[in-house]
């Protein structure tokens, strides 16, 4: 044993004190006695603590309270968090771990929460947080001097905006700093005065609000839209504008978006991930995907880059960007060949006959020496004159008889359809194909888009078996058309057909290989596996899809090709199967309560809900920069409906036909029309129709550059419009705001300009009088706003959050009160309503407002255009008839002075007209009674005796109480209503929870799982995972489509015009051809590449891109990802500064050079705010822009269709998408010296 010779001398003695404290301490302190004063009974000892500071540090892990909240950030995670508060300061946040279990045979949802959520509390005390109300200096100066001159604030505002010099003074300095703090009351008076003035002078529809994604904070969303709905303002949709709206969903399902919760991935045995990066954008849910692999699930990834989800793939199909439709068509070709033609799969066969339109008959129309598909055969076509017959579709039975089955649109709203709107076929056995029952076979011409001189492509000849009707018309089934479309050869049919899978003609695996780059063998393998798995598991094959395949101009077509695979394999409406479309936090589970409160449906109807893309396309004047027209896209098989029409002409036409909304609506103030009708001695609808017909009244969208038609006041809250979602950002800058921009696109040449929409020169700049941003961060939107109002964060308010990813409802709760001068969105709008009401008393009073509402989905308006035919009153074909051939004209009485009182009370229409969702309505008596008791009744004013909505928790309570998902009474009421219409048993879906009501207090305690409700199409009954359309499949409840089934075939005139009646492949728009070579210096190292803007790993959607924690995980500033080959061509090394430019604008950023990227494509993850390390551009001499500087929207006319079955307008349901993925950019290396000012 080794011993230390020095230390061993004292071995036997213990050290004097532990750690060898000096003897001095022993000498100076008592060793045996403790200081202290005992109480007389010696039960307590009182000591003076001399080490209070130490105790303070020991207590650092003790918290005063732990508060449950979540993050309202359009993050589909919607995770519950614990927020730790010590001494009034937020010090910490950790994941909540008290989610209800999913049951014994499934992984649980926990743990939830990711680094993005964990870094949120940074915002609360960030030095760059917006803490005070700000007004730009020059505007405040103008305002104060105007107020000194005018006692009346409205007159003061008028004196500023009607003076060109004065208004230019504050508009031109937007985005140039110069904010000053101003007191709340003063700022709100200014904003309110602008509202009152605008409503009075131009009409309330010139007052506009933009706030996206209600699900992420429903009370905060509702606060603003409720105010706007009460005054008649315009509320912009966002889902379509974000291009997250899958237009194929309304087209195929008649539903906006309904998808499985992430727990249902566990039930899938074959998972294709196609355009959504699950581990990155669904971080807290991705574990279900990895866990399911242990259960034997196969994962196939289709993605152009080696992305974070690709590494989980068993099979990776790297299809070229935008060609996904070609791959899916080829897979469909394989499935139809092997699982339909070569043999019959009983499960598939009975599924498609019951739940899809495949057995329905379609008429054919002669076209040249062949035929083309025309319209669904309806009962009216075969001599049935009864109610609804023009919307009852017809099928062929196995014994060759025509049969009108239940469940089509004709049964949905008619008296005789009561109890018959269902998918029961009884003893009828439909024939899938006419083959075998056919009279003859005819040649059929079908559009193809992979080749051809224009975007409209060319024609391919196939053939179908047909039956001849008594009147000589030829009909065939949708199935036969689909077989022809996919090119599946069957004996005895004329036309050109591929011989086998190796024949490179549409739509074989070999054909797609040349387009997508995916080997034919891989496409065949995955198609077979997908279908075979579905056959064996009865539909448990799933496709997760998202922005990667949904942000394209022709995304609706891409998605239809995906959905066809799902439908052919019987996967939809089955747990573990079907489509799983994931984009934003789109699902407001308590839908009825939310929509009732948010759009003030309890006080007046209808609200002015506008399609966001149409609004911005018009009002940022992006329509003035088109290089081709709507007819460029038309199929040669069309009827020339759009010949010579600009896109904006299509928009104007759809607006005047009532198909799509149009706010601002007329070139006259909507508050004056009712009085004018009275003066003319006519009813308001009659008067409006007459004035339109005689050309004395015009739609604002026909002359958007007329100052009378400008949107004047825009309020943005919970959103970063200019920094994140503003596609065509530089056009926003130029036309809406009137500031400097980097767009260099030339305006449309004279010969391509619109014919119905007036062109004015020069184009206006600075249309907006007032832009208000409400936020807690100084976003790009705030930096360009005239007024910035400081919002409370998500740890400082009461609110509700839900998501499509899980079935739980979450609460937000204030951990601390809003600090500094910040206020909740709820309080801000309430105070704005107060200020508005005060000024409105004198200036507006009680007025009748004429609202022109579009023909609405899920209402009898869907019956307006039988057979989907376009007829236009403008051309004199018939009269403009409100609600049939033009928008509905409705009069809403508004007591403007009572706006703030109405904000604070639940209005009477919930009892008289009831509430409802998706075509059914009911009177929620129990909920109203409950709210009166829970929230208390209002005393005095317009809301006398009504349940109070004065506080944010009252609103939260109302949202929960009025919705079926959170109130069992309401759910049962809704199901009973639906039973009356369908005649099938539904009530039992909610019966197990009929007495249950989830209150706000409940969700403060724990996240609560929702109740099965007719607001949605899936079922949670018995604790099962949510999968959409389960109710449709299991209970035979129809889809909200024309046929009542999921539809492969669409027969509207405009759809035919674009050659899209059947699923097809349309390649990305050919921008190089349309816009030419955009290089500025081709010989100095510039390349043109495809430009994609996917969702970032370090942020979700608009938020977090200024979060330093997240920025530090990568390079901090904006970057573009590119392949080594592309980088080499322009001499770029990793991290070099580059510029990306095109006709729309310029981006300056660093390059990320990585092998993960395919050649010819670059990524710029969105969305980085413009103030984060964005240097000056060498090209524009102005600051580089955000990712949206390089984009400009082009609307797709088929998204404007309305008034026809599922192709009818509803807010965020149907409308043009703000797609941006077809864009190309030019890249170059720039000087590595950058300057920021």
């Amino acid at each position, binding site marked *: 044993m080794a011993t230390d010779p020095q230390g061993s001398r004292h071995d036997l003695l213990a050290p004097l004190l532990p750690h060898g404290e000096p003897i001095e301490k022993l000498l100076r302190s008592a060793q045996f006695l403790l200081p202290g004063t005992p109480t007389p009974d010696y039960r307590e000892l009182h000591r003076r603590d001399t080490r209070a500071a130490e105790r303070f540090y020991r207590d650092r892990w003790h918290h005063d309270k732990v508060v449950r909240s979540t993050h309202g950030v359009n993050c589909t995670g919607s995770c519950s968090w614990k927020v730790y508060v010590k001494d009034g300061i937020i010090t910490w946040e950790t994941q909540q771990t008290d989610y209800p279990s999913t049951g014994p045979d499934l992984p649980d949802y926990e743990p939830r929460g990711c680094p993005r959520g964990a870094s949120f509390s940074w915002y609360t*005390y960030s030095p*760059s947080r917006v803490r005070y109300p700000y007004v730009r200096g020059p505007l405040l100066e103008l305002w104060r001097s105007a107020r000194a001159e005018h006692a009346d604030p409205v007159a003061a505002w008028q004196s500023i905006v009607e003076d060109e010099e004065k208004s230019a003074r504050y508009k031109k300095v937007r985005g140039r700093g110069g904010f000053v*703090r101003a007191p709340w009351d003063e700022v709100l008076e200014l904003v309110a005065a602008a509202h009152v003035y605008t409503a009075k002078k131009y009409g309330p529809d010139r007052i506009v609000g933009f706030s996206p994604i209600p699900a992420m904070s429903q009370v905060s969303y509702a606060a603003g839209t409720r105010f706007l709905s009460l005054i008649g303002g315009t509320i912009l949709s966002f889902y379509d504008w974000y291009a997250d709206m899958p237009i194929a969903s309304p087209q195929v399902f008649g539903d906006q978006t309904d998808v499985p919760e992430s727990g249902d991935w566990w039930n899938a045995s074959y998972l294709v991930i196609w355009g959504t990066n699950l581990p990155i954008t669904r971080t807290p849910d991705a574990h279900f995907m990895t866990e399911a692999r242990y259960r034997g699930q196969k994962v196939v990834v289709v993605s152009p880059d080696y992305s974070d989800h690709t590494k989980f793939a068993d099979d990776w199909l790297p299809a070229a960007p935008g060609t996904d439709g070609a791959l899916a068509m080829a897979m469909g070709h394989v499935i139809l060949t092997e699982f339909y033609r070569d043999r019959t799969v009983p499960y598939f066969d009975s599924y498609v006959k019951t739940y899809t339109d495949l057995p329905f008959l379609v008429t054919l129309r002669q076209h040249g020496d062949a035929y083309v598909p025309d319209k669904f055969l309806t009962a009216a076509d075969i001599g049935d004159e009864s109610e609804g017959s023009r919307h009852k579709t017809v099928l062929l039975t196995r014994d060759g008889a025509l049969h009108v089955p239940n469940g089509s649109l004709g049964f949905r709203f008619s008296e005789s359809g009561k109890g018959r709107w269902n998918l029961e076929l009884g003893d009828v056995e439909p024939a899938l194909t006419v083959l075998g029952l056919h009279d003859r076979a005819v040649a059929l011409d079908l559009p193809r888009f992979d080749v051809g001189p224009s975007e409209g492509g060319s024609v391919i000849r196939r053939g179908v078996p047909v039956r001849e009707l008594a009147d000589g018309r030829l009909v065939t089934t949708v199935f036969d058309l689909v077989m022809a479309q996919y090119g599946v050869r069957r004996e005895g049919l004329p036309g050109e057909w591929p011989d086998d899978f190796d024949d490179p003609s549409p739509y074989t695996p070999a054909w797609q290989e040349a387009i997508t780059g995916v080997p034919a063998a891989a496409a065949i393998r995955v198609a077979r596996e997908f279908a075979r798995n579905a056959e064996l598991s009865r539909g448990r094959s799933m496709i997760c899809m998202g922005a990667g395949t949904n942000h394209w101009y022709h995304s609706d077509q891409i998605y239809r090709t995906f959905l066809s695979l799902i439908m052919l394999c019987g996967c939809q409406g089955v747990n573990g199967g079907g489509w799983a479309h994931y984009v934003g936090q789109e699902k407001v589970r308590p839908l009825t309560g939310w929509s009732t409160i948010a759009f003030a449906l309890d006080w007046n109807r209808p609200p002015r809900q506008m399609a966001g893309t149409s609004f911005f396309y018009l009002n940022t004047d992006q329509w003035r920069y088109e290089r081709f027209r709507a007819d460029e896209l038309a199929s040669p098989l069309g009827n020339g409906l759009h010949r010579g029409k600009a896109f904006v002409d299509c928009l104007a036409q759809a607006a005047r036909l009532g198909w799509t909304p149009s706010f601002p609506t007329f070139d006259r103030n909507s508050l004056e029309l009712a009085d004018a009708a009275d003066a003319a001695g006519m009813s308001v609808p009659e008067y409006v129709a007459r004035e339109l017909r005689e050309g004395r009244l015009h739609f604002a969208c026909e002359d958007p550059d007329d100052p009378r038609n400008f949107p004047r006041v825009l309020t943005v809250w919970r959103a970063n419009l200019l920094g994140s979602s503003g596609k065509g950002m530089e056009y926003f800058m130029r036309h809406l705001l009137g500031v400097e921009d980097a767009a260099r696109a030339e305006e449309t040449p004279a010969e391509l300009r619109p014919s119905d929409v007036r062109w004015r020169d020069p184009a206006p700049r600075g249309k907006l009088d007032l832009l208000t941003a409400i936020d807690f961060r100084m976003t790009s939107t705030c930096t360009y706003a005239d007024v910035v109002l400081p919002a409370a964060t998500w740890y400082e308010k009461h609110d509700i959050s839900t998501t499509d990813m899980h079935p739980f409802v979450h609460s937000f709760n204030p951990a601390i009160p809003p600090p500094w001068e910040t206020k909740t969105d709820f309080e801000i709008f309430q105070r704005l309503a107060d200020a508005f009401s005060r000024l409105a008393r004198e200036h507006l009073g009680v007025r009748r407002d004429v609202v022109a509402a579009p023909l609405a989905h899920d209402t009898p308006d869907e019956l307006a255009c039988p057979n989907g035919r376009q007829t236009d009153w403008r051309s004199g074909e018939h009269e403009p008839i409100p609600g049939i051939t033009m928008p509905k004209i409705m009069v809403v009485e508004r007591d403007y002075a009572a706006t703030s009182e109405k904000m604070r009370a639940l209005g009477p229409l919930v009892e008289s007209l009831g509430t409802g969702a998706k075509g059914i309505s009911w009177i929620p008596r129990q909920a109203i009674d409950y709210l009166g008791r829970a929230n208390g009744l209002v005393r005095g004013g317009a809301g006398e005796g009504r349940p109070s909505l004065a506080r944010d928790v009252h609103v939260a309570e109302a949202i929960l109480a009025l919705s079926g998902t959170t109130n069992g009474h309401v759910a049962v009421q809704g199901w009973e209503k639906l039973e009356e219409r369908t005649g099938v048993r539904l009530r039992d879906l909610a019966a197990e929870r009929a007495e249950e009501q989830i209150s706000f207090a409940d969700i403060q305690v724990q996240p609560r799982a929702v109740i099965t409700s007719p607001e949605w199409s899936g079922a949670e009954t018995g604790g099962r995972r949510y999968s959409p359309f389960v109710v449709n499949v299991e209970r035979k409840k129809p889809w909200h489509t024309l046929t009542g089934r999921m539809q492969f075939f669409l027969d509207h005139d405009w759809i035919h015009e674009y050659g899209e009646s059947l699923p097809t492949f349309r390649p990305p728009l050919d921008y190089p051809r349309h816009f030419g070579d955009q290089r500025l210096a081709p010989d100095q190292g510039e390349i043109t590449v495809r430009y994609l803007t996917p969702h970032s790993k370090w942020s979700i959607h608009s938020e977090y891109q200024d979060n330093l924690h997240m920025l530090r995980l990568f390079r901090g500033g904006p970057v573009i990802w590119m392949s080594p080959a592309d980088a080499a061509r322009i001499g770029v090394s990793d991290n070099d500064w580059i510029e990306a430019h095109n006709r729309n604008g310029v981006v300056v950023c660093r390059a990320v050079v990585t092998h993960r990227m395919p050649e010819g494509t670059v990524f710029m993850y969105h969305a980085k705010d413009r103030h984060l390390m964005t240097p000056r551009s060498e090209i524009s001499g102005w600051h580089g822009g955000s990712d949206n500087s390089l984009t400009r929207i082009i609307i797709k006319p088929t998204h404007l269709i309305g008034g026809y079955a599922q192709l009818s307008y509803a807010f965020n349901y149907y409308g043009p998408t703000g797609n941006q993925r077809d864009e190309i950019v030019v890249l170059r290396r720039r000087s590595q010296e950058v300057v920021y000012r």
Partner: protein
Amino acid sequence: MDSTERRTIGPFKLLSLLLTYPTQEICRSVDRFRELAHAVDRRRTREGLLTFLQWLDVTPPNDVGQHYVHVFDLERRRTLYLTYYRYGDTRKRGMAIITFKETYRRAGFIPREEELPDYLPMVLEFADLSPKGVSLLKAHRVELELLHDSLRAIDTPYAALLDATCGLLPELSRPERLQARRLRDAGPPIEEVGLEPFAPPEYLVSPSDAPRIPLGSKP
């Protein structure tokens, strides 16, 4: 008399007021401030105050407000919240803020809830009321130096107020000077919890090569 009411108005109080947002009252009272500033003993402080007041006197109040927002409201590197300089966005900052609160309490003051306890004007007011406040300022000498540097870099009249403040405190010690330089060069520390290396060290860049984000958006 309330213990927070003072017979004499010292330089800390003046600095505290002048570093808050310029309200009308402040802008209108330049003469009164001047009178009080003249009475300040220490020359560096007196001159700093007078320099600032001269600018305040000749500048339209609206411009003063715009300038203040530009200087202090939205820039991390010029924030008036002292803990930010040392703790940045790390989770230590919350505790550091509470330490200020605790210090006020132990000296017998209750901080108002409208502001964060590390707000420089609050600390200055504390220094005016209690010698413990001067100690607190001394303990944050480095932070004040960084703020002072950032203000000088944009040539704002507010730099004079920081100069005046530093004039009331001892010069930086050598370790403080080193620390100030380190923070200036590297920015506030970054959060490292949860960011442990996940690969062998030879695959990781050394900390000195790692990309750094300078304070603010500009390098």
